[in-house]
């Protein structure tokens, strides 16, 4: 039992889908990072602007630091509508001037005046973004640094980052879907030639041992040429086998003929009736054997020719004439009237003349040997593009229940027959796209009908 391997299509799709999924995940992560950076940058500007405004609002009045927080700073921060705002202003002595006293000062070092320090943190249980801006005072009464810390919750920036990411993810998904769809289409298209080679092999005639000539892409050529090499080897093996059968039959026939003539000779010199009777039986068996060998030869020949010999135009009338000449022996123990009815115009089909002759010969031989009492008629006609060769006799014929079996090899051997004759004819006709049929008109008429597609069709 061969283990079932996943299809090439499934393998490719799974691999490509995995690559796409990995790529999409990486891109999504990257998109999230970029989106977060962009959102932070956008909202950090507002935060820094607000911190500057607040720092600007710190001034010295009557020798003390005081601050009048501008509403505009809060309005600036309110541009991110949902975010809460925390702030703290620390005076030069480290005391909280105003704001949330517990808001931590981010960073140990004060930031450079032109570069406020941004950081992330948590305040009142919510994640916040903090900015720290410093302003130096050199007033006679107030000297030192004032720190302004502004913190804002991160809802707006998170929402913006999420929205940007979602849009990017939408694009990534659309692109991945397109890529996957395209891949499915491309793979199906690319694998088509394989199916074509398969179909050509499947639809091949079992006897056809010619090389495959279907056009294939470069990648499949080794595969097809391997098949062709295999076919060539198979053909040579088959040829050898058939040659062997033919040789064997031939080799058997020669000693058989010799044996038969020896037995003939012997029969003239034997007086004893008992011995004569034995001898007659031996002669009968030898006849039977030689006929079997003849038919085996015939079978081997047509098997060899089927699919191996190219079809050519065949003159049916001439072929049938020859068949009759070869099938009806000059010497018969009974008188049979043999007739051939042919139409005036010539009849032609495409096929192998030798095989066809062999088929007709076997049908006639069968009729002579088992059927015809006094009359044998061979008719030839062409109707509606079908050529019919009909062999009719006045013998007992074949019982209808045997009709399907007599066309099989050794299907219904008759006494003294080999059981090959009609099967040879049926094989030949099948190879020519025709058929073998039977017809019984009345008590004294049985016909075997061979049909072949005519030249015209």
């Amino acid at each position, binding site marked *: 039992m061969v283990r079932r391997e996943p299809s090439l299509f499934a393998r490719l799709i799974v691999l490509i889908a995995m690559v796409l999924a990995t790529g999409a995940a990486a891109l999504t992560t990257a998109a999230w990072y970029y989106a977060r950076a962009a959102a932070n940058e956008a909202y950090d500007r507002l935060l820094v602007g607000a911190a500057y405004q607040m720092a600007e609002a710190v001034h010295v009045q009557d020798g003390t630091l*005081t601050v009048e927080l501008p509403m505009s700073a*809060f309005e600036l921060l309110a541009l991110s*509508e949902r975010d809460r705002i925390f702030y703290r202003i620390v005076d030069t002595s480290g005391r909280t001037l105003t704001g949330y006293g517990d808001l931590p000062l981010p960073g140990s070092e004060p930031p450079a005046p032109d570069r406020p320090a941004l950081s992330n943190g948590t305040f009142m249980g919510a994640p916040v973004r903090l900015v720290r801006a410093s302003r130096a005072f050199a007033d006679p009464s107030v000297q030192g640094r004032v720190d302004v810390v502004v913190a804002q919750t991160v809802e707006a920036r998170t929402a913006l980052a999420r929205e940007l990411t979602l849009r990017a993810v939408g694009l990534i998904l659309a692109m991945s879907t397109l890529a996957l769809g395209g891949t499915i289409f491309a793979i199906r298209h690319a694998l088509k030639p394989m199916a074509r080679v398969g179909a050509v092999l499947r639809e091949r005639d079992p006897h056809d041992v010619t090389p495959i000539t279907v056009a294939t892409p470069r990648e499949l050529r080794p595969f097809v040429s391997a098949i062709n090499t295999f076919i060539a080897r198979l053909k040579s093996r088959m040829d050898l086998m058939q040659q062997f059968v033919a040789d064997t039959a031939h080799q058997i026939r020669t000693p058989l003929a010799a044996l038969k003539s020896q037995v003939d000779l012997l029969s003239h010199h034997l007086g004893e009736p008992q011995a004569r009777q034995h001898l007659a039986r031996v002669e009968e068996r030898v006849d039977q054997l030689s006929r079997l060998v003849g038919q085996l030869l015939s079978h081997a020949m047509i098997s060899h020719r089927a699919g191996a010999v190219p079809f050519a135009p065949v003159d049916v009338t001439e072929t049938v004439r020859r068949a009759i000449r070869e099938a009806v022996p000059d010497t018969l123990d009974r008188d049979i009237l043999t007739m051939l009815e042919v139409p005036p115009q010539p009849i032609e089909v495409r096929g192998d003349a030798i095989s066809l002759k062999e088929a007709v010969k076997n049908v006639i031989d069968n009729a002579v040997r088992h059927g015809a009492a006094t009359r044998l008629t061979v008719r030839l006609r062409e109707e509606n593009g079908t050529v019919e060769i009909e062999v009719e006799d006045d013998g007992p014929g074949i019982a209808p229940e045997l009709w399907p079996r007599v066309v099989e090899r050794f299907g219904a051997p008759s006494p003294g027959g080999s059981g090959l004759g009609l099967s040879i004819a049926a094989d030949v006709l099948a190879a020519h796209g025709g058929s073998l049929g039977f017809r019984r008109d009345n008590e004294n008429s049985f016909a075997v009908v061979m049909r072949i597609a005519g030249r015209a069709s």
Partner: protein
Amino acid sequence: MKRHSILRHRLATLCLSILTVPFSATLPHAQEATTFPAVAAEIEVLSIHAATDLSAMEPLIRDFQALFPNTRIEFVEYVTNDLYAAAAEACRQGKALGDVLLSSSVDHLVKLANDGCARGIASPETAAAPRWANWRGDVFGFTFEPVVFVYNRSKVPAGDVPKTHLELADLLRLKPETYAGQVGTYDIRLSGIGFLLAFYDSQETTTTFGRLLESLGRAHAVIRCCTSQILDELEAGRLSIGYNMLASYAYARVRAGANLGIVMPADYTLVLSRGAMVPAHAPRADAGTRFVNYLLSSRGQEVSRREAFFFGAGGEMPPGVEGASSIVRTGIARPIAIGPALLAVQDHERRRRFISDWGRTLVEMSTP
């Protein structure tokens, strides 16, 4: 110039006592609880803590109970600063002050929400609220209340009725003998809403506000904790003009038959939207959310316009109010947007400075 320095000198002695007031006012001193029993079998109790007159809220509470008859409502009244102090303290301790907070001092609610003391609400009603009346889905403005001048018709002749803030300042300056001790306004040290309105006045026009404040001080303006007290005195004839009064309260008096006139200032009219909020740790937050949704719903708004606060969000005027027919259409309405900008109002340093400036100009001259 000389007079000014004398003025300052006199003030210095009073200054200390004034400055301590806003910080000592954190002790609750005006709490009154009222209970509205459930109409049907009681299933839940909704506790409302409000710095809003009960008389204005009552029609809304009754209508809410018509919708939810199984709710008993407890209504606790505060002055704005007390409500904020109590709510902030409760939030610090991880507790909640009731299930709904209502305050005309929306800056207090914004500060509470900014400190994470609010519970967000998302509903079709909150989504329909105007942008300036909704912050974070935490704090909602549910009324539209113009800030007006109110005068006693029998004491102020038609020719004297001020149409703008500047006219009010000029009137007090030109007729000091007539109006000395006759003008009332909020004591912004006690009233959060008074502070909020004065702050926004100062933002609108710095010069006019300075003149007005000076005129008020010169005219020995009477300062009170609440609108109702000033309206009482106006009605009684002890005062002639009330400055920065909430139109809703004044109109309620007019409807009740008081001989009062209401003027929408024609230069600009501040519009206050009373705030509602559900505290973060509210024990019955679902009931609180339902109440806030009701206040914002078209039904609640309709009841509010008809029976409670009389002014609709479109700025349409009830009959008998002097000024433009719609302050929204004519563009003189200045709604106090509910948003983080109110945090600047809440900044204690800024607040301290503002109140001390205000006290310096006003209290010193009006205090006998």
